[in-house]
């Protein structure tokens, strides 16, 4: 009876967290790449 609310709650929890994890790792690898490029250029 309440399954929809439960599934929606877990989706509303883990989808934003997965997006935040993905964005954070992508930003970190981009910063690492730029730092390495700058170090090589110096």
């Amino acid at each position, binding site marked *: *009876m*309440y*399954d929809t*609310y*439960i599934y*929606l*709650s*877990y989706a*509303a*929890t883990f989808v*934003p*967290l997965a997006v*935040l*994890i993905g964005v*954070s*790792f992508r*930003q*970190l690898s981009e*910063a*690492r790449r*730029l*730092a390495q490029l*700058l170090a090589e250029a*110096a």
Partner: protein
Amino acid sequence: MLKALENISAHYANPTRFMALAAKLHAPLWGLVALCLAYGLYRVAYVPDDYQQGATVKIMFVHVPAAWMALFGYSFIFFASITALVFRHPLGHVAARAAAPVGAVFTLIALITGSLWGQPMWGTWWVWDARLTSVLVLFFIYLGYIALWQAIDEPTRAARAASILAIVGFINVPIVKFSVDWWNTLHQPASVSRLARPALHADFLYPLLIMGAGFLLLFLALTLTRMQMEILRQKLRRRS
């Protein structure tokens, strides 16, 4: 004890040393997050229905830890801002800025999952009671804090303005926590923090605490990852 903390804090004030420590902690911390959340979700799957809430009690295992992290996240930003502003710790602003999106996402999750629990249990998605409203205000403070960092181009001025906002905004944290005691709210009072006699049966309490530990580890892992990114960005800004 305080002296030891002071020494550790001074040692890792050097961003290079901190980056070396973060690199060592990165993989084990994310491994712990995965293990803890997987075990927590496994325990939640076998939680019995509550005599009043039925199966919707399962929503509590994400809603409550998310709400804990919303408050913990803001307290973390507050203490990091104090450390930066008063003690001039070089990583204070970095830690506060890194934690802000993490805390904001946990606050948003607490609001949405609370609403998804409220509809079947209270018969409404939202009421303007003290707890719900103060958590919504907390979410707006998080957004304001993030926006302030982006609105000011000069990093030192942005850091100072954001820290002042973080410190002033902390007044909302005790309001959120004690709103259920100070005002007549539809939201129920605390069930777990009464350490002597928690109002929860062990069947519910232990999975909730495991999920809480998983969310705490996730908060720390995300903040650490974002701190590494912020330090690298700072270095890039200085060199360019």
